């Protein structure tokens, strides 16, 4: 079977994870004009909470049910009691505080679980491979693609069909307008932060059985998320999806050819998009 | 005003589209030296768009802007400021944490050209900028507040400083965007006297909502309506014009 096909599917899986990390960051960026440098640490903590639950109970499914909501709570607290006081501060202080929060989470993780990465076992149900003729692929990775695709659909429905979704979509256009409609935008911000942290935490949890939980996985994830957010268009749900998949597939396909080259290209693309098309490749002109 | 003073600032056939919306539909006029030329009109008449085309904040879709005989249509705002155009802002737009003197000095220093890029000598070496700043302080009676931060001035004083920043570069044409916006009655009369006095030395473009002030101190009033010039002439003529009343009050129905 073609190596490229395998890598394409790998790339889709990685891309979906990138999307889940990025979408919250993007919406927070778009609605609050706030860059959260602690977002990568949410992903990190999500992975470790998942590890902790699996280590304690042996159940990956319980971990997946418990860890992301715990991250949502963490995100909600961080927004409510720390970050919300910075919405009117110059962005260098927003960056300083979120960098500080990221450090606290990262070092806290090492304090609790040690400085060496931890492995998370693949759940028994999903161990092994799927075989379709000559197509052989790990079950768990297929599950990640399917599960995140389903979740993406649910999220999309929620954004399109619910009142909160409508408010949020309006918020990425103009927060003033939403405020004028008499909606408590601060509650909306808290909720959005919680959602972003939930998704980042879930991404961390889903990645753990593939690449383990590592105390230094935050900055790398944050960095890729910035690329996805910029390329897809700040505040854009579909942009984050397309951007995530694009970056995932490009990285995966290039990994056996020239992986540093892929990384250089990705950041060149990020700079070009900001310079030439700041609304993102999919953003409305 | 001297009726035969040369035109300092001219616009010919200015058009500005925003998508399908035509904000300016071919506006032409000439602002004579040593005169106050006011632009009035109901909201949406195109005054702000016109102002932005004159200062270079917007590029007109068609038409030319001429400053002292030179075509400046394609010049960016900072270049216009360097060849004699000073502007104020409708919403006070100052260097909040700098003192009044330092703000004025910086505004004057912009005219120093390449010398403003001097990296190593003290700024005091540019005596011309400091002298201009002192002169403006004196002229605007802001000298008691010389070392107060711009952000700590009263609103009225900030409006005066707003004009001062436009004045510090010794411009030949001054564009004032609603200089009395938000001012109290006492402050308005100070501003009115100031504009009238400045109008004896500069060509002034004035956008203003305060009708009494406009009719009192302007030499020429241009009434705009829906992106076009409705009436232009001396204040008395504008005051009596029926079309102006209709434009302001809406159709009689």
């Amino acid at each position, binding site marked *: 079977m073609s190596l490229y096909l395998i890598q394409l599917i790998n790339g889709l899986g990685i891309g979906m994870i990138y999307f889940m990390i990025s979408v919250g960051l993007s919406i927070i960026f778009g609605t609050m004009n706030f860059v959260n440098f602690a977002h990568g640490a949410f992903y990190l903590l999500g992975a470790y909470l998942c590890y902790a639950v699996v280590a304690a109970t042996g159940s990956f499914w319980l971990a997946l049910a418990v860890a992301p909501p715990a991250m949502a709570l963490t995100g909600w607290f961080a927004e409510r009691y720390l970050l919300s006081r910075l919405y009117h*501060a110059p*962005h260098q202080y927003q960056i300083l505080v979120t*960098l500080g929060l990221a*450090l606290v989470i990262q070092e806290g993780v090492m304090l609790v679980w040690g400085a060496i990465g931890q492995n998370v076992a693949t759940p028994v149900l999903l161990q092994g491979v799927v075989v379709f003729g000559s197509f052989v692929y790990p079950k768990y990775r297929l599950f990640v693609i399917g599960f995140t695709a389903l979740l993406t659909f649910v999220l999309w429905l929620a954004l399109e069909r619910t009142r909160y979704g409508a408010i949020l979509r309006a918020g990425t256009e103009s927060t003033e307008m939403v405020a004028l409609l008499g909606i408590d935008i601060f509650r909306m911000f808290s909720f959005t932060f919680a959602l972003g942290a939930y998704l980042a935490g879930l991404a961390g949890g889903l990645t753990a059985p593939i690449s383990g939980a590592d105390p230094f996985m935050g900055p790398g994830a944050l960095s890729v998320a910035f690329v996805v957010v910029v390329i897809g268009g700040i505040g854009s749900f579909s942009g984050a999806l397309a951007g995530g998949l694009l970056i995932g597939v490009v990285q995966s396909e290039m990994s056996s050819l*020239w992986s540093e080259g892929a990384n250089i290209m990705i950041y060149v693309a990020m*700079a070009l998009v900001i310079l030439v098309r700041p609304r993102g490749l999919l953003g409305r002109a | 005003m001297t009726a035969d003073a040369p035109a300092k600032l001219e616009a010919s056939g200015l058009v500005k589209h925003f998508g399908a919306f035509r904000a300016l539909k071919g506006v032409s006029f000439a602002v004579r030296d040593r005169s106050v030329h006011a632009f009035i009109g109901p909201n949406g008449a195109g005054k702000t768009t016109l102002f932005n085309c004159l200062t270079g904040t917007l590029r007109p879709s068609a038409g030319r802007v001429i400053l002292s005989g030179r075509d400046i249509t394609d010049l960016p*705002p900072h270049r216009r400021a360097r060849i004699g155009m*000073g502007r104020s802002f409708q919403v006070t737009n100052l260097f909040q944490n700098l003192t009044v003197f330092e703000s004025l000095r910086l505004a004057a220093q912009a005219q120093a050209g390449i010398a403003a890029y001097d990296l190593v000598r003290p700024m005091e070496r540019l005596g011309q900028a400091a002298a201009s700043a002192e002169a403006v302080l004196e002229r605007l009676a802001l000298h008691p507040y010389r070392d107060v931060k711009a952000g700590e001035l009263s609103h009225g004083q900030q409006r005066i400083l707003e004009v001062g*920043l436009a004045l510090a570069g010794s411009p030949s044409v001054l564009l004032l965007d609603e200089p009395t916006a938000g001012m109290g009655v006492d402050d308005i009369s100070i501003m009115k006297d100031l504009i009238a006095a400045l109008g004896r030395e500069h060509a002034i473009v004035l956008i203003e909502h305060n009708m009494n002030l406009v009719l009192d101190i302007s030499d020429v009033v241009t009434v705009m309506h829906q992106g076009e010039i409705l009436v232009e002439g001396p204040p008395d003529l504008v005051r009596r014009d029926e079309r102006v009343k209709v434009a302001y009050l809406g159709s009689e129905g």
Partner: protein
Amino acid sequence: MRRLLQPHVELAVSLAAVVVLPIVLPSIAMATEVVIFIIATLGCNLLIGYVGLMSFGQAIFFGVGAYACSLTLLHSHVGIGAGLLAAIAASAIVALFVGFLSTQKRGIYFVMLTFAFSQMFYFIAYAMAGLTGGDNGLLDIPRPPLVLFHVTLLSLTPPLEMYGLAAVVFVALFVFLQRVITSPFGSTLQAIRENEQRAIAVGYNTRNFKVIAFVLSGVVTGIAGALYALFLQFAPLGNIDVSMSERIIVMSILGGTGSLFGSVLGGTFYVVAGNMLSAIWPRWLLLLGLILMVVGCYLQGGLLGAAERLARRIGRRGPRAMTPAASNKPVGRP
């Protein structure tokens, strides 16, 4: 602007610090590291404090300065001065390129652009392993003596002489930057920081000023990188990692961006605390994270701002009445 210390006092205190540091600190090596990072912080402070530009690109210049100096010394027998000049030239060229493009955008888009460039240069350095040593870095960098007209000024072999070189460069750059910020150019930068739109309206080509400031900042940071390579005799890939930018930014804001002296405080605090605390407790960064959160929320003037506030509080009790309290508004604005 009301200041705790007048510029000449700041210079005097900085000179005193240069003399005292190698005595009070546990090692001369630590003092050298302090001085080198103060230089890098000064470069960053020029952008954040005086232009209001937060750049994640500082690691690029730190790394490029280190590589340029190291490669010059590794591949030729020219003196140490040529190494430093190579660092200046290389960081100036790269800063001109990055600055010219980054200053096309403002606010958070500027930050994101510098972030993208920082990652780009990191991966370029990583990929060009033949030149930069890639992940291993450049090893065994020679440290030739400082010779002027055939007279050996410093052999640079004893640690104190390496410290002396860094200290002299620091003082020279401090004096230079003090002049820059009080020059017509520097005063214009502050106008841009306060209100760029207005600076344009009064006639400044603010793009030019920002690009020049970016290049100055890049060169100062590049010199710091070169000194770091000479000091370690090693140029690791980590020099050009975006986390280096973060470190330099943290030192700048922690110290206080309102004055150059803040950088002296920030660089000293970070390096000394980092060295000492990490020896006691490997998780000391947890503490740093908490400090960053406190500074960002409550002490936006940094250490220097805190000292000024304290001095005002003491001064208010004293005989000298103070004119209206200086606003505690942060200096930079988005």
